[in-house]
């Protein structure tokens, strides 16, 4: 400490009462539950976490102004969604390429999230990588539903190259894509200044468009 800084750091003693003693909290069952969740039954933990995941799905499907998705992010939802999507997009492939196909969706999801997050951070946004992965993953739910519908529709036999069924499938996936974009714009668009909002939203648009394109391309395993 420099000697000329010492006078600035001495405090005045006017009007301060000295507090001394021990601080103890009364041992209360509810207090210790809030502090440590190690002792609770496993079922409670699962129910609480599952409830949080389901609530976040609800926020993603019906976009309300809520900061839960961003502040209490978790990666369960994205994991479930991407795994289900990868299983749904399996087509009649040989054994060697089936693994590669499964990994394609994961790779696309990972690289897309990295690109979107880095882009948002470079443009001055204040969002972290995991928050962005969380939001992008949860907003994928409408596209997953459209992949379900797609698979079901593919069971109807069709002969021509372009039939009304293809058009219906295309429209369903495009509608889900629009829904997904709307949801993620609500969450991720607000983290950026208005001058650069379109610059941040454009990579998200590309990312979801690629996933929608993968879903459209999926043909029925014969």
């Amino acid at each position, binding site marked *: 400490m*420099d000697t*000329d*800084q010492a*006078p*600035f750091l001495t*405090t*005045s003693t*006017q*009007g*301060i009462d000295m507090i001394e003693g021990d601080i103890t909290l009364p041992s209360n069952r509810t207090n210790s539950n809030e502090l440590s969740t190690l002792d609770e039954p496993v079922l409670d933990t699962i129910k609480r976490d599952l409830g949080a995941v389901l609530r976040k799905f609800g926020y993603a499907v019906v976009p309300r102004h809520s900061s839960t998705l961003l502040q209490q992010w978790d990666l369960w939802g994205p994991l479930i969604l991407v795994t289900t999507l990868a299983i749904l997009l399996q*087509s*009649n*492939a040989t054994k060697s390429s089936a693994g590669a196909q499964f990994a*394609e969706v994961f790779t696309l999801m990972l690289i897309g999230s990295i690109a979107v997050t*880095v*882009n948002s*951070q*470079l*443009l*001055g946004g204040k969002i972290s990588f995991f928050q962005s992965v969380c939001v992008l993953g949860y907003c994928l739910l409408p596209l997953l539903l459209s992949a379900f519908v797609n698979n079901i529709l593919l069971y109807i036999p069709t002969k021509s*190259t372009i039939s009304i069924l293809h058009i219906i499938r295309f429209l369903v996936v495009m509608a889900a894509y629009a829904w997904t974009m709307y949801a993620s714009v609500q969450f991720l668009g607000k983290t950026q*200044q208005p*001058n*650069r*909002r*379109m*610059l941040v939203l*454009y*990579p998200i648009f*590309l990312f979801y*468009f*690629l996933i929608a*394109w*993968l879903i459209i*391309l999926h*043909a029925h395993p*014969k």
Partner: protein
Amino acid sequence: MMFSNDGFLTDKTSSSNSGQTHVFTSFPNSAVDPDDEHFGNQSSDTDKLVLPLPATATDAKPEQSYVWQIEYYQKYFQIDTQQVLERLAASVTPRPNKSYFDSTIRQNPDLYGPFWVCITFIVTVGISGNIVNYFHLPDVEFQIDFSRITLSAILVCLYWWLMPTFIYFFFRWRLNRIEYTFLELLCLYGYSLAIFIPVSVLWIIPINWLQWTLTFIASLVSGSVLVVTFWPTINSDHKRLSAISMLVVLLAHLLMAVCIMFVFFHISDSNINPKSVTTLATTTLSSMSTLTATTTTTATITPKTA
């Protein structure tokens, strides 16, 4: 003795001072770094020469940021939506008297536009190539061929990086001055690819002469923007050399477009084998790189003999 709100030691007790929290807003003289005063004077003098940055540029003092931090690269992304749209529009309108380079890019070269234009180009080429495949091979199980997409991605990114490298070194060694920084050249070339994005969607239409016409027109328009930008600099050199180098720039642009068209879209007969198309593309790519290298070296060698 009590601390007042602005941190000075006084004898009076301020009414709002709680006596327990001290906010230091001024520091003793020893805390001032003597180097900071020089910094402050310099920045105020050069402020008048710096052109205005976009509205969202941060005003914070530049802190020390390292290569592995995001903040180090943020200076290449100081750009607004409006500016990106302006640059995209200017990259397809060649104007001989007013260089859009000087009015837009030179103040603030960015990497956002070029990078995402390249990625969008690769994505649209991949998707359009898929659509073309779907219409011409209806019996085959329809899967995305990632090897072709990877090939086109490598081609486009190489073009985006190699041409500015060539031009930068050409200017540096031949003309002995650095008129354009590498970043500005990257920016130029990235935006010049923007016209190919709608063209790649139009390439789906399987009419032979239409595809060729589109290729020529698009590469001519964006190539002429490049030529117009470089012309004032290169005009100071020999006439023959400047003409040849501008021709090389145009030809490289055209060659890149033709390569993409051949790999994905060109349907001259209905029995195109995907494997033969890929080998054709790789041979064209290698010949393009050797062609560019040889024309650049001949362009540098011939004026010396002339």
